[in-house]
């Protein structure tokens, strides 16, 4: 009995030591490994880009974690990643916290659509006053005079409007509240712009998929989600009135018309909370990748610049298939030029 007892202990020791030895051998192959974290909205597109790039450049591995815009910005400030991503760009206070500075590059764009669940209604039109009123909790029933006026001749049910909003903080909510605050002074006063505002009405669901599920399952529901989601699941999308008074349906063309009016300053952060072009869809936004202006690693820098150039030029061809809006040519040129701002730190190894 004693010998088998000792034998067990020796066996356990060998197994433990072998685990320890194995974990020490990580990353012995040479090759560059880039770490990124940030927004979940462009995650499907980024994963596709990074996979394609890795496939054609064998020794490069890119890891992107979609933890949310806020966490992405925090990671950039804490210097735990090589690049971040954010739908909410970066505030000047946050940019000042990074010594060496950051360079934001617009990568792609998307628009936010209102999806609804109304039996028998296919092309729901909503004017600015109406959809602001819905999300303020003022328009409570589907046969409200405001909705009836926007949709003459359409049979609207006499049921409550079940608003669905996001339960978790998100860049999508930030952009949507930015737009609502721009078109409705009352909204700017009360919930205001925030990634998780105090919505006056509605049930909350977690993530784009949670909102989608809630809307699809609740009769009379309306909620806001990304265009890519709605397109891939073939959900009905409301036709919204823009600043110049025309009712525009969401599509790549109408979102591009909205984004083309953006004026880009030097730091490449531009918003279009309320575009006034005639055929512009009212709710569209860019999303950015955040890089440091100075890198210390000689091996990573050229790879990162090459990756970003790929994303801004050839990568844009993949955007539309996944429901994202390709960058307008002028913006892509500006972003390509800004990649030159990313350089080696003076005291790099």
């Amino acid at each position, binding site marked *: 009995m004693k010998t088998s007892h000792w034998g067990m202990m020796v066996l356990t020791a060998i197994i433990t030591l072998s685990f320890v030895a194995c974990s020490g051998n990580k990353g012995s192959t040479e090759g560059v490994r880039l770490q990124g974290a940030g927004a979940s909205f462009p995650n499907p597109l980024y994963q596709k880009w990074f996979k394609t790039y890795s496939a054609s450049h064998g020794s490069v591995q890119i890891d992107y974690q979609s933890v949310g815009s*806020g966490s992405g910005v925090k990671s950039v400030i804490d210097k735990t990643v090589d690049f971040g991503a954010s739908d909410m760009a970066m505030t000047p206070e946050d940019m000042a916290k990074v010594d060496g500075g950051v360079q934001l590059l617009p990568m792609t764009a998307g628009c936010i659509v209102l999806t609804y669940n109304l039996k028998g209604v296919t092309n729901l039109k909503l004017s600015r006053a109406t959809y602001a009123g819905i999300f303020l909790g003022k328009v409570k029933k589907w046969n409200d005079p405001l909705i009836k006026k926007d949709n003459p001749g359409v049979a609207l049910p006499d049921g409550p409007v079940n608003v669905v909003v996001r*339960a*978790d903080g998100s860049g999508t909510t930030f952009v949507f509240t930015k737009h609502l605050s721009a078109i409705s002074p009352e909204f700017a006063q009360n919930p205001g712009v925030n990634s*998780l505002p105090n919505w006056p009405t509605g049930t*909350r669901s977690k993530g784009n998929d949670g909102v989608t599920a809630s809307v699809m*399952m609740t009769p009379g529901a309306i909620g806001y989600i990304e265009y890519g989601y709605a397109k891939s699941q073939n959900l009905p999308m409301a036709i919204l009135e823009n600043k110049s008074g025309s009712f525009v349906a969401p599509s790549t063309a109408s979102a591009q018309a909205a984004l083309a009016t953006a004026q880009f300053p030097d730091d490449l952060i531009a918003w279009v909370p309320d575009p006034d072009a005639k055929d512009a869809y009212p709710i569209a936004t860019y999303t950015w990748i955040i890089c440091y202006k100075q890198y210390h690693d000689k091996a990573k820098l050229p790879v990162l610049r090459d990756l970003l150039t790929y994303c801004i030029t050839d990568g844009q061809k993949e955007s539309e298939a996944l429901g994202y809006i390709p960058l307008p040519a002028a913006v892509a040129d500006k972003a390509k030029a800004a990649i030159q701002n990313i350089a080696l730190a003076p005291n790099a190894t």
Partner: protein
Amino acid sequence: MAEAKAITQPPTGLQRATDSVFRGLCYSFAWLSVLAVIFIVLRIAFAAAPAVRQYGLGFLATRTWDPNKEQFGILPEIWGTMYTSMLALGIGTAFGVAAAVFLSESYLGAFVFSVLKLFHLEFHPFWGKLPEQVENVLKNLIELLAAIPSVVYGLWGLHVVIPLIRPACDWLHMRMGWFAPFGTDLSGPGVLPAVVVLSIMILPTITAISRQALVSVPPKLRMAAYGLGATQWETIFAVILPTAARGILGGILLAFGRALGETMALAMLVGNANTISVSLFSPANTLAALLANTFPEAHPKEIGVLMYAALVLLGITLVVNMIGAFILQRASAGIEGGK
């Protein structure tokens, strides 16, 4: 008087050393667990300190959660946590103890046995074991409910339970809308779907522990009751359940703790709206769901507030456990007094 080597001997030095090392290790591991809990509570308290200073006890009594105006209050979340947990506990206890009684009285085994008797197979070497195996399968099936991940419960609730109960809820709201618990209509996620799924989640805990307690009742008690002429149900209610009450209460307490802390399923099903309402169909919010949803994208200013909410949740769990321990003590004192 020359003795052969004695069979018994005092412990050698090595044995004594091994004994004290082993005892020391056990003590240190036990203390490490206690210290780990204290460490967690202290870290959360430190992170929450600025928010506690700023908002004080008003935090527990106000209703708005507005990050823009920096007004925070968790009264709706405290209400939602207690309301959903109590309701789920009620339903879970009823079904859980019933299932435990069913398992401990071997009704299914008796039924299979009577079927085998029809075919004269009850003493067959292979088929004769069937009643016991069927009982085992049933017991394991119920315990398997505990193995299903919380996220899966949430998705199931969202896609199956809500559409299933919607017609009944709408009917109840239309006919009996004057009755407060049916006051609003079911606009998607809400208290009732969350309670239904939560009670299924705590069922295996209650059933497993209650079954164990019921089976541990000494057979002498059961036989004595039958000998005195009690029927089966009189025995169960008057003799067996009271004897096993201590174990059953322990299981209920454990289940309550689980219900209070349940995060993912409730984050998907409870509707996350900061309202306080008695209606079963209105959305609500719980502390755990609030933390799960707001923490990832919280601004640095909000993190202190969220830590404060976490501290409140820890406090509620502690108070509940203390009340439960007190009830357990009173219950067992009454029963064991007869011995």
